[in-house]
């Protein structure tokens, strides 16, 4: 089945489409930027243990709330002294300036922001990709069946779609995650467990003679419930697109011909209708990955994600320090914007080249 799908995708991308893709790529600088950003984010996510300077969870309370390079923060601190039961407040101004070891500064517990942003990429992309895959696996078959059989089946399935559309994706996601708890799956990180990360980090030396501290996290937490929920919440968009395509394709001559030759419905859907609806589904997938990255960050911002290593969570933490250290909330946000811009640019490129005509579909946060 998967092999058939891959052929279909390759097949669908007839030379003309590939030529379209390439010409679109060459002509528009925006597409190049988009693909560039996406590659950077992908590499960061995959090779996080090598790229992150510090262990994202390593705390150092002595250097908490350190500003990013190029900024200094004059932080005045108040401590209390209990003199015979009476609480005295002592004022002191502490000058905190950036260090090269923490280019993006540190958060309230002294954890390195850059490392957390790097690992955050992994969470966001993992949820984005897996969530989209799940939504696709659920939505596309339903859409194809609805489109192919039309009549009552179509109506029934589309009413189900309407019901799940009746809930804004974020509200439904919050409800499901809030109620089902935030189960997370500990996934071993091959780069670290094989010692590869430690080896490489040992060799590479940082500017100023510092060496990479080793001891990166052995496992990586995948927010299981969030991925499931995000998939459930977004299947509708795939169903709508797949149904649209199936409706279009089912009346084509070659489909009638296949049916006349005695092909079973199931065979026809798999053999004829599915391959032809791949392109719009592919384009929708890119839009969905962007939408899900935004959705995941919103969920973790509200505290509904299974892992603390995610951009949304750091932004929420940053809110506490909004008066004293603005960068704790700013940095992860910029990472989200950059990633989503990259994905959207690639999405536009695919849509312009393949022109599946699905303007405006796809759930936002």
């Amino acid at each position, binding site marked *: 089945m998967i092999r058939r799908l891959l052929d279909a995708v390759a097949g669908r991308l007839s030379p003309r489409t590939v030529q379209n893709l390439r010409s679109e790529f060459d002509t528009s600088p925006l597409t190049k930027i988009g693909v560039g950003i996406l590659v950077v984010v992908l590499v960061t996510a995959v090779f996080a243990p090598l790229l992150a300077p510090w262990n994202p969870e390593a705390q150092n309370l002595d250097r908490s709330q350190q500003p990013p390079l190029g900024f200094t923060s004059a932080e005045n601190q108040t401590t209390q002294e209990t003199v015979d039961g009476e609480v005295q407040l002592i004022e002191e101004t502490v000058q905190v300036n950036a260090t090269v070891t923490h280019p993006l500064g540190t958060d309230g517990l002294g954890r390195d922001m850059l490392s957390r942003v790097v690992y955050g990429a992994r969470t966001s992309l993992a949820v984005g990709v897996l969530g989209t895959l799940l939504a696709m696996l659920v939505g596309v078959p339903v859409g194809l069946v609805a489109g192919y059989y039309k009549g009552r089946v179509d109506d029934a399935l589309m009413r189900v779609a309407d019901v799940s559309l009746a809930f804004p994706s974020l509200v439904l996601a919050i409800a499901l995650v809030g109620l089902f708890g935030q189960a997370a799956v500990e996934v071993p990180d091959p780069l670290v467990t094989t010692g590869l990360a430690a080896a490489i980090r040992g060799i590479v030396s940082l500017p100023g003679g510092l060496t990479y501290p080793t001891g990166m996290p052995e496992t990586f937490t995948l927010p299981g419930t969030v991925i499931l929920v995000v998939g459930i919440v977004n299947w509708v968009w795939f169903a709508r697109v797949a149904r649209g395509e199936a409706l279009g394709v089912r009346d084509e001559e070659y489909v009638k011909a296949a049916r006349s030759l005695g092909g079973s419905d199931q065979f026809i859907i798999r053999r004829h209708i599915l391959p032809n609806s791949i392109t719009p589904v592919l384009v929708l997938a890119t839009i969905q990955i962007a939408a899900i990255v935004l959705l995941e960050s919103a969920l973790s911002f509200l505290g509904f994600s299974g892992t603390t290593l995610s951009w949304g969570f750091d*932004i929420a933490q940053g809110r506490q320090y909004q008066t004293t250290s603005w960068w704790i909330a700013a940095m992860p*946000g910029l990472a989200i914007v950059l990633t*989503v811009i990259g994905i959207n640019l690639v999405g536009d490129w695919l849509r312009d080249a393949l022109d599946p005509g699905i303007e405006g579909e796809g759930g936002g946060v």
Partner: protein
Amino acid sequence: MGSFGRFLLKRSLQGVVVILGVISVLFALRYVTPGSPVDFIAPLDASDATRRRIAESLGLNQPFYVQYGDYVVSLLQGEMGYSYRSRTAVAPRVFAKLPATLELAVAATVVAVILSIPLGVISATRRHTGPDYAATVFSFLGISTPNFWLGVMLVILFAVQFGVFPTSGRPVGLLDALGHLVVIAGPERGWALPLNVGPFLAAMQNWLLHVTLPAITLGTYFTALITRLTRSGMLDELGQGYVQAARAKGLPTTLVRYRHALRNTLIPVITVVGLQLGTLIGGAVITEAVFDWPGLGSLIIDAINNRDWPLIQGSLVVIGAGFVVVNVVVDALYVRLNPRVLE
């Protein structure tokens, strides 16, 4: 009844079916989730006997369909049961929160529509010029920015750093502000519109100050989306034959653009706006969390955290129903603008 009326009826019936579906899904959800609401009410060390008594008082022991029946019937009478935690009635509490959310959603939509339609038209009609590039970059950034982060940044910049806007909260609602103006003196002395404009202006200013940042936070994604759609829609329409024919008739450019091209551009835009309404309400929920805006959004988040089922069900039914109603309205608007669909 014209075909439009028949369409409206059929669409509304579909809407009712969907709302019923929403209620059933919600009800089923309760039986699938772990943990029971009793844990949240019973004191820390309640014995099993007390737990059973609480369960009974909440009607949890009756069979599934009886509870479902009671729920639907009570819903029709506008009753949504009592909150497990605060024991107060759910319906008035949920509907008291509705104006705050509606204010935010409407303010954001108004901001979005007023900004995005002209922006989209300008960038479509004056291609490859300053405004076109600005609009494209802005709209691209707009759809790629998570609205809660935008909210936090706006607060840090405008509220904390420059103190121009309040950081959060909604001390006075729009209705209360308007309330100052309109005091109906009653039929006997004729409807009087007093001139105590002072408090009205103060209240309006207070409301506007508090709603600006949340409206921008919520509205940005929408503005960006509609700008992009209007722009690409206008570009398509301006290439159509009837535009050339209209110009050939001697119609002035403004007429050609707004009465013909824009009108046909709005049709697909409205459909997408209808589809993306979920994002608006979803966005409202998170914007309320960022700005402590006392709307349905913050109510739902607390309800879910406390597993306060009647409150969850009540709020979600209102949101689901509101969403379906708005969708029916959007479809009706679509059909009115695009008669061909009625065939």
